[in-house]
């Protein structure tokens, strides 16, 4: 599903690479944590998978597509198979929960009729039934993140990328979000999550890949934060 082969990423003007000769393989349906201190290069992996940045060396394969050689005009279509959740939710403040999710569908060419059918379903799935017409500022942090998850999942992506999705949430709410991601993972969606929330990693007992200074220092099935 996801392959990183000898991937090195050096940002311009950086003294050392953010990722240094990284090799990772992730199978379909896996749930993987990338952990490590700030600046260790975890988020760079997410950016590489989305082709937001280009690897300096090495090969990145996502969904059997070689991302490193993907033409830039094909990137939008490629991204439709990947859902994304971020620490800061990235919701549109002037749109309701329903409209936020529908927007993601409509801008990739789905009709309003499709949105009317699919959006309530996915909002129900993330536990926001009855709150479709609230604006983000009328929702709690956890609920906003649920909207974001709904938006990421509404297009039924093969992969869900989550960049510190619990970073802005209290521990209880974080656990609820993790249950949600776990449920999504059980539908067959591959979940890749970047975090430094040790509680969550320890509770979930999933594959843990630890990165330090751009190198993989640990790759453990059913690991803990340690």
């Amino acid at each position, binding site marked *: 599903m996801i392959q990183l082969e000898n991937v090195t990423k050096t940002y311009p003007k950086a003294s050392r690479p953010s990722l240094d000769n990284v090799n990772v393989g992730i199978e379909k349906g896996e749930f993987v944590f990338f952990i490590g201190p700030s600046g260790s290069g975890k988020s760079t992996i997410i950016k590489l998978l*989305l082709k937001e940045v280009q690897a300096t060396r090495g090969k990145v394969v996502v969904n059997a597509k070689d991302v490193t050689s993907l033409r830039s*005009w094909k*990137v*939008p*279509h*490629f*991204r*439709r198979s*990947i859902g*994304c959740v971020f620490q800061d939710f*990235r919701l*549109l*403040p002037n749109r309701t929960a329903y409209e936020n999710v529908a*927007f*993601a569908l*409509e*801008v*990739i*060419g789905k*009709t*309003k009729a499709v949105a009317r059918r699919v959006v309530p379903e996915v909002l129900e799935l993330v536990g926001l039934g009855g709150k479709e017409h609230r604006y983000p500022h009328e929702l709690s942090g956890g609920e906003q993140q649920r909207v974001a998850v709904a*938006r990421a999942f509404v*297009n039924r992506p093969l992969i869900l990328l989550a960049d510190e999705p619990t970073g802005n949430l209290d521990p209880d709410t974080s656990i609820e979000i993790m249950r949600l991601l776990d449920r999504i993972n059980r539908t067959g969606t591959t979940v890749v999550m970047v975090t430094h929330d040790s509680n969550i990693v320890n509770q979930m007992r999933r594959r843990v890949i630890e990165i330090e200074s751009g190198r993989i220092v640990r790759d453990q099935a059913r690991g803990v934060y340690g």
Partner: protein
Amino acid sequence: MRVRYVLNEVLVGLWRNVTMTIAMIITITVSLGMLGASVLMYLQVDRMKDFYYGEIEVSVFLADNVEDAQVQALKQQIDANPLVKSATYESKEDALKRFQVLYADTPDFVSAVNADSLPQSFRVKLKNPEDYDKFNEEFKGATGVQRIIDQKELLEKVFNIFNSVQLMSLVFAIVMAAAAVLLVGNTIQVAAYSKRREVAVMKLVGASNWFVQAPFVLEAVVAGAIGAILGFVGLFIGKVVLLDNKLQALTAILTPVPNGNVWLMLPLLVGVGALLSAATAWITLRFYLKV
């Protein structure tokens, strides 16, 4: 849905920043109006050249003491010259008649002149009026020729004035166009900034590049087209008010400006306005959206 979404975004975009939109449209209007005026003037000078160059003649005035045989020889020489389309001989009497007609308003002056004091001449039409210099070169030294005068030189002075006015309005149009381009670029930047969240989400979920860019580009195109239409309206009003009314006397000398030419400016201005705005917006987005 997508078309409606894009159109809605365009209107909202233009309205959100309405003072900037107005400034943009005014600059585009003035710039394209000047461009239209310049092109019209260019076409007009062309038409006038066509018209007047068909009429103008080269006058070959003969010396007073020229003999008939020399006149005949000269006539043959002129007729045989490949540059010449036609040539007519004007005797002293003909010259007097023409003189009398020309100065009919001042009879005293006319009565003071008799045929003898006027030179005989050839009125020569050249195949190509631009060949005057060659003609002059060949005949200025011929026996019996006193002076050769080209009417074209007079016209040339008039055309030169037109040409410089036309050039001035073209330069002005280009300077205004530069201002318009900067304003369009700025407006698009502001629009892209105010919609940065939407754009970020669109890129994240994989909206196609054209879909992300279309509202911005169309916003610029609409402003460009409105500016072009206003510029055209200004041009048309200017033509009707100035040339057809106030300065009608002038149009008696200038050949009249055909309405067809003025209408021709509409597609030209709209095309230039829309294309220039679209290109500016597109290039601006390359830098500010990185799509």
